[in-house]
């Protein structure tokens, strides 16, 4: 059994079998992370460059940790302090790095499709760590892993994705993955932040009322409202957003049932989630972070094999 693809550009191109293989391999790597020596020598002969054109702490750290735990050599490229600031093109940058015999590229870029462009032009295996408003496949994989860990299954699970659906690559990757694995998805948020034809295009349900969405779901994956967008005419203010779409303890208690709370991070406390919800018993947010390293180890391990 092996992956059907040479790169991880998005969930869109993965089969359900690929996803299953990644998740079960991640389970084995999670065990490795509990050992006294949290390392395996599997990728000892591999060099990986983390090409981050957009700022990120948690994703980059998670990838870096995953790479080191696999004994790979890692290289970090941060766009601001590099030749990109001098105007070097993406392709030039990458070809330069590859001439130094780097085997894999983990890439985050603000332009949707940047990793796909790279994949056409360079021989290395590429992992998409987030491209514009397109996809963030490893986030969806670790979300799925965490849901499965907590609730035992993905098939038939009811997942509500809440927030700025329009601009969220986490949401898109999750929608693709959950449906491939037999789960049902409802997106919830202000109408200005949900694409008009998303139901027809992606087969998800749309709900503008937060409480109804929470009543329906088993899991609520809550997205960060991007503070940069509060000056655009998409919602009147953060305060109004949080009154209508923020999740607090009182709202959760009024549902009369337990649901699982997830968030890709970083959380705007008091906006989309109150602290007592984010830190409470229904939240698996820290498990998501822990699982992220195991899932990324699995992705890198499986892709490194195809490299030959």
């Amino acid at each position, binding site marked *: 059994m092996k992956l059907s693809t040479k790169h991880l550009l998005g969930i869109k191109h993965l089969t359900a079998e690929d996803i299953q293989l990644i998740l*079960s*391999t991640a389970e*084995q790597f999670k065990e490795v992370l509990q050992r006294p*020596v949290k*390392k395996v020598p*599997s990728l000892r002969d591999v060099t990986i460059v983390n090409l981050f054109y957009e700022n990120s702490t948690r994703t980059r750290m998670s990838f870096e940790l995953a790479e080191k735990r696999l004994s790979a050599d890692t290289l970090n490229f941060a766009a601001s302090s590099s030749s990109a600031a001098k105007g070097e093109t993406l392709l030039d940058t990458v070809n330069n790095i590859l001439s130094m015999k780097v085997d894999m590229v983990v890439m985050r870029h603000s332009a949707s499709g940047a990793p796909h462009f790279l994949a056409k032009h360079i021989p290395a295996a590429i992992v998409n760590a987030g491209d514009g408003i397109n996809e963030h496949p490893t986030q969806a994989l670790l979300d799925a892993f965490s849901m499965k860990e907590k609730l035992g299954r993905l098939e038939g699970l009811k997942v509500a994705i809440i927030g700025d659906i329009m601009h969220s690559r986490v949401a898109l990757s999750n929608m693709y993955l959950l449906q491939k694995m037999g789960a049902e998805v409802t997106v919830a948020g202000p109408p200005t932040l949900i694409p008009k034809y998303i139901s027809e295009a992606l087969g998800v349900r749309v709900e503008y009322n937060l409480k109804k969405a929470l009543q329906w779901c088993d899991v609520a994956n809550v997205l960060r409202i991007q503070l940069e967008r509060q000056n655009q005419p998409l919602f009147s203010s953060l305060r109004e957003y949080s009154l209508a779409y923020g999740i607090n303890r009182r709202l959760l208690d009024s549902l009369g049932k337990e649901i699982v709370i997830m968030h890709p991070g970083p959380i705007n406390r008091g906006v989309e989630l109150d602290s007592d919800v984010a830190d409470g018993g229904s939240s698996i947010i820290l498990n998501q972070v822990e699982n992220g390293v195991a899932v990324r180890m699995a992705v890198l391990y499986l892709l490194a*094999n195809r490299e030959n």
Partner: protein
Amino acid sequence: MIIGLQPRGIFLSDRIVQELEKLVPPATIQYGKLDITFYRDDVRKSLHIASNTDIPFSIENKNVILVDDVLYTGRTIRAALDALLDYGRPAKVALCVLVDRRFSRELPIQPDYLGKAIDTIYSQRVTVLWKENNDSEQVMLLDN
């Protein structure tokens, strides 16, 4: 303590532990399972799927017996030794196998406890069938 190697050594180690439990109090037997997929020396040339590793106790200063079904080139045991050393420093590691493909070793590794040694050539395969996942129990020598 006994450590069975995944995926096939565990059938033998399960049996051994069952027999031991008839002779000594079960609580005194320390039994774990080890998967060495991530330590293989061909880990990037071919894709192997890992199974469970469960070593619920410290191996520090203990006498460990590794258990596997067939000893062939010795590379699996080499990987198992590397994996074990990441768990701690055992006082001693010994090897127990059901079948030893005698002159086929590629590394200097020999069994301490042995079922049967047989002579085979490179093109042959030795397969052990266990009743846990097959209809019959047998050791087969196959010409490919």
